[in-house]
């Protein structure tokens, strides 16, 4: 190991296509669960806001799930969804993302200023329509903040899938460890970090483009909180 350099550029050069495929696979395994979680979390968050009693039990369930080690969940799932399948890895990742996104959505909806809610009601919005058309867009910066955390942590957690044969870039860590060959490990770390960075920047940019008002809203809310403290 002492003679082995940290990075062998030759290996990287001869494995470019392989690294690209692993990165794409990793992106799918990590980010599709976040999208699925978003589709579930928004209605669930709306429901928990409309019926506040639901929120504590729902939050409790997702927190418990969040505490379960990924490997343990894989072992439980393998008989049903198969070894080395995307599904087996993506189910726990979806649950982890939900544990972040449901509270983010609920917090965002709860932070909607009372004046906005009142004026929407006074103009003749029913409770559901008001939640979906007025409050949810006003909460979008909170949801995107949750999405950023969920996406980055999902990219990191997806590597564990390599233990059951489907972990995208995570495979590079096992490979390098088994062969005491550091180059794939370093390449894996750099690519995971790069994927996380690109995803995060994409989300920030998307918020700027789709919701130009949101950055300002968050600043204003923070100012208000600062003033009342």
């Amino acid at each position, binding site marked *: 190991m002492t003679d082995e350099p940290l990075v062998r550029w030759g290996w990287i050069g001869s494995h470019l296509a392989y690294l690209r495929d692993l990165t794409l696979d990793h992106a799918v395994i990590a980010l599709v669960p976040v999208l699925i979680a978003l589709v579930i979390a928004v209605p669930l968050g709306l429901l928990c806001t409309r019926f506040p009693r639901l929120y504590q039990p729902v939050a409790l369930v997702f927190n418990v799930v969040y505490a379960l080690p990924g490997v343990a969940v894989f072992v439980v799932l393998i008989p049903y969804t198969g070894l080395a399948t995307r599904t087996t890895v993506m189910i726990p990742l979806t649950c982890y993302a939900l544990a972040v996104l449901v509270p983010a959505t609920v917090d965002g909806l709860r932070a909607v200023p009372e*004046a*906005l809610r009142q004026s929407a009601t006074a103009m003749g919005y029913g409770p559901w329509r008001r939640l979906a058309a007025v409050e949810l867009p006003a909460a979008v910066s909170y949801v995107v903040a949750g999405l950023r955390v969920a996406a980055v942590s999902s990219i990191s957690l997806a590597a564990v899938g390599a233990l059951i044969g489907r972990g995208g870039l995570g495979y590079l860590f096992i490979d390098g460890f088994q062969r005491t060959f550091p180059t794939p490990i370093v390449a894996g770390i750099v690519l995971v970090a790069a994927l996380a960075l690109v995803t995060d920047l994409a989300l920030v940019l998307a918020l700027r483009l789709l919701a130009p008002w949101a950055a300002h809203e968050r600043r204003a809310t923070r100012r208000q909180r600062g003033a009342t403290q």
Partner: protein
Amino acid sequence: MIRFEGAAKRHPDGTVAVEGLDLEVPAGRTTVLVGPSGCGKTTILRMVNRMVTPTAGRVLLDGADVAGLDAAKLRRGIGYVIQQAGLFPQRRVLDNIATVPYLLGWDRKRARARAAEMLELVGLPPETGRRYPFQLSGGQQQRVGVARALAADPPVLLMDEPFSAVDPVVRAGLQEELLRLQAELHKTVLFVTHDIDEAVRLGDQVVVLRDHGHIAQRADPHTLLTSPADQDVTAFLGPGRGLRGLGLVPATGVELDGLGRADGWELALDAEGRPTGWTGPDGQLQGPAPVFVPARDSLHAALDAAVLSPSGLAVAVDAETGRAVGTVSRAGILGALAAGAAAAGTSTGTSAGTAKVPGGRQP
């Protein structure tokens, strides 16, 4: 017309917000509810659009009990403006204004065209329509709030301290704008404020409330200022009632003298006949000369000009040309007040005993 019949609101915890209110809000006029915070004025306002349900009594809108109407439909027919404007942050100004038309199912083009009209009506330039609310000043946001409330042309307008959060100069502008709009649109306006000057300035009818929505006095502004019902109302009105009342009397009745001299002071005019100042006995020009517009201003403004004038004479000018049309002394203005009071005294029975003076300057 809105009518409250024994309307009361008792909260589940036993506290009483409003205790049996009987009140008539006449159609096409502005009724202002004024009182200290916690007197139940906002609760009363919200009973009209069912954001608060009375625990006893009822609220009638054009003879129909609002409790029997569909809440969402009722609200789309009632304009509502609040202190923080409550604009939707995610919608551009034009789409904010078009909110109720959209809810009523108007097509996009028609709703937007209507919103553009409303933007003009409240005195905002067309390009404001493409902005987001956070890009506007507080005063502009309030104007958009008013435009949004008027967009579907509701006969009734509820306003809950709409101008309280802006600075005094902007507030005065917004008040003037509301008087101008109301002179044109004749909505049934129910306006809530804790500012008695605002109440007197805007109301055709002012309702002074004390705790639990009890009416201390209901009168037109002139009657309220000149004959408060009791000590509490007098205290609430504060000092200077008499002078403030001058702001309610139009200056049209002032008898003008010529443009002559007074005690050695001579009015200096430019080539167009507009006053530039007063020339004193020492030959020094002191300008500009304080002026008022008889057709638009109040006696308060006229007296103010006379008090500020070095010669003791206020100069009356034409609103359009700015030309001097005459002068009047302090005594002359007070003479007009005596005549005005006699005229007002004969019509105390009606709720609109005094004319609103949109341009009248007030303290």
